[in-house]
């Protein structure tokens, strides 16, 4: 039954379909912008796009880790809004922005822990769990704020993240860039990162190989909660206010789009942080381009939804999954 075959290592590997298609999509979008809206390339707009990419990218990093382990976290934006609202209320009341920021992170971690516990220990389905926490958390944010925006936050807080210490690039962008590099390295070379891929590829084999799969799954959701908390800080600083509708449904769509366009498989076990950031860049530019060209918001939703379906359809991982 054993067939002896020794495949020689290929000298040149074709890039995956997903990479080719996303590169083509990126170039087509940039060309369209160049023709129809050359203003896009102005310095001010580029910085603005980078800020948007950073915040979407941060959430996409959290989603990427969860998806590599084989789950999904739909509660990310709602989680961000909840943390932002709670932290902002504290800042407004006390003027202490550092503790406010810590509250935002703590809220994110706590919600991540709830998601992780439900999935890893109670063996619930990630999609359902995080859809439920999304609903609960969104409802709570609206209730806490009475749907009002919380503004007049401490200037020191806003100025801190709006500062441009390096080549005119805002602190927010730098923070995300450093963090992304760190997470990319940890996913590639840390024990936890290897465990994450191993569980996502095949949890049965991972279990036999002594990997504590429950802890890996739990940790992935806590990590995405942490990313939601960090996003809450940066987004609140950028907007100068916090509100419950920071985490509207369109954001979930953008995060998932960024991940699948960036080559993170929804079947688990494959994907890289830089890929997800590229996806976030592509989705942001695509949204901006449609906006500049004058495509209606609703049509842009149709386009983004179609992009997700197209990329899931060409996901190579589904063919190798049992």
């Amino acid at each position, binding site marked *: *039954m054993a067939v002896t075959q020794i495949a020689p290592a290929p000298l040149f590997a074709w890039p995956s379909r997903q990479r080719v298609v996303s590169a083509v999509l990126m170039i087509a979008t940039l060309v369209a912008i160049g023709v129809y809206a050359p203003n896009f390339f102005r310095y001010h707009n580029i910085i603005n796009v980078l800020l948007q990419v950073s915040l979407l990218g941060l959430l996409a990093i959290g989603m990427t880790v969860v998806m590599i382990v084989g789950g999904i976290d739909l509660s990310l934006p709602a989680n961000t809004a909840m943390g932002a609202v709670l932290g902002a209320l504290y800042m407004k009341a006390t003027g202490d922005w550092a503790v406010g920021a810590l509250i935002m992170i703590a809220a994110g971690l706590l919600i991540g822990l709830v998601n992780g516990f439900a999935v890893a220990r109670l063996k619930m389905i990630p999609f359902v769990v995080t859809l439920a926490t999304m609903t609960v958390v969104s409802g709570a944010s609206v209730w806490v704020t009475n749907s009002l925006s919380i503004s007049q936050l401490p200037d020191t807080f806003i100025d801190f993240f709006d500062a441009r210490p390096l080549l005119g690039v805002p602190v927010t962008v730098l923070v995300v860039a450093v963090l992304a590099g760190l997470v990319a*390295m940890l996913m590639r070379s*840390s*024990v936890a990162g290897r465990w994450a891929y*191993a569980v996502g590829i095949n949890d049965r*084999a*991972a279990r036999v*190989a002594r990997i504590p799969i429950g802890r890996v799954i739990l940790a992935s959701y806590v990590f995405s909660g942490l990313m939601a908390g960090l996003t809450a800080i940066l987004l609140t600083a950028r907007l100068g206010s916090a509100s419950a509708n920071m985490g509207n449904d369109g954001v979930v769509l953008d995060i998932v789009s960024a991940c699948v366009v960036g080559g993170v498989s929804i079947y688990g076990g494959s994907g890289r942080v830089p890929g997800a950031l590229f996806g976030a860049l592509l989705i942001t530019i695509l949204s901006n381009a449609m906006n500049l060209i004058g495509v209606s918001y609703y049509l842009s939703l149709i386009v983004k939804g179609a992009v997700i379906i197209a990329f899931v359809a060409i996901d190579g991982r589904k063919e190798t999954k049992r």
Partner: protein
Amino acid sequence: MNAQQTSLRMEGISKAFAGIAALRGASLEARGGEATAVMGANGAGKSTLMNILGGVVASDRGRIVLDGAETVIRSPRQAAQQGVAFVHQELTMLPTLTVAENIFIDSLPSSGPFIRTREMARQSEALLARLGCSIPPETRVEQLSIGDQQLIEIARALRHKAKVIIFDEPTSSLTGPERQRLFNVIRGLKTDGVVIIYITHFLDEIFSICERVTVMRNGETVWSSPISEVDPAKVVHLMLGVAENEGRIRAPIEAVGEPLIAVTGLRRDGVLRDVDFEIRSGEIVGLWGLLGSGRTELLRALVGLDPIDGGTISWRDGRTLAPIAPERLHAHVGMITEDRRGEGVHLPLSISDNIALPNLKSLLNKWRLIDRGRQNALADAMIDRLKIKASGREQIVATLSGGNQQKVVFGKWLATSPRLFLLDEPTRGLDISAKTEIMRLVVELAEQGCSVLLVSSELQELMRVCDRYLIISRGRLIDELPGSAGASALMGSIAMIDNDLEVAS
């Protein structure tokens, strides 16, 4: 109905999968009113033969004669039309539907767009009554026990007026009383003149329920006779064949010293009970039993892959033997399960990444990150030591041959320096030379002081390396034999009929 009217003959059936012969001119003869046991070890070809009869796969050659007329069966649906029904080991029920709906699923009685529920219930009741059971037809199947679900599946077969019913290991998940009830149902079907084909790994069952026995080995039918002409030992001999003397790799040693691991009273309800044994350092112990005897389950329970319901596992740590939880024992043990592709390796990863996986914590650099250089060195060392044939450490494991994949699995564990290896069918699906290589490796491990608990379906393989045998049957260790035991003693040991029909419970 005339009980001798129905007859089934399969003649000269051959089938190859991807050029490898699964059946070589196999034959089967069965008569109405009788149950015919089909016996054979793993890979003997009995499933393929039954799948051909059930229309699941097509034969390359050969013919099927049913009631004296040659019959062509190309799909399960055609099989059903010809009166051939299959009661699978894994039941094929729709759990959220009712009993009646499950019985009638392939042709619900209807008038216009509506299902005639009452008519369906009435007929279901009648069918179930024939089986001596009174489950209300409107019960949802998920609320029934496995044994009851099996009866529903048989009722489905009866509705098609099945002339031939194939039972594929029907008792493997039944309790004692459920099994007795099933036997009564089968006796009833026999008096109705149905041809019963009965596949099982439990020897005792065929002597209590079957009139004829057919034994298969390596894709051929090697024996066919009334059951009265054989005894259990004879059947085991026929199934396993003459042990070809491939020669021992190592003469049995008498291990001395204190045990490395001691297990007392290990129990998993319905699977294992009263399991007591010890293994000493450097000893290769064969766990010998037929498929379904609990041998795989015992290995999995020891390291916590399956839960246990009682008993103690003690492990030597330093000088003392102390109780240890199965999950903790896992950290000291190299575990090779029977499902190499599903549990042994991560197919899409490279050789290097696979070997590194259980060893990550020993490959860290001063930044607590995995040191690529050390990982590569480990992979290269294992490729070299185990003579893994590959283009290099970066080759994807999915593209390796089975033997080389198995070596990767050994490589993963070797680097963790385990003191005990649990090996479940480590040579399954490998060619002769790869098998020998793996067995040599097992001996080499033992020479270095490792203990091994080895499960194999192939007796001759166990006989090449084992120092001692534990005999397992129906979830219990029923005997222990020395390494010098011969093939007939070993075959005889599992052919002992357990008068106590109860599965561990």
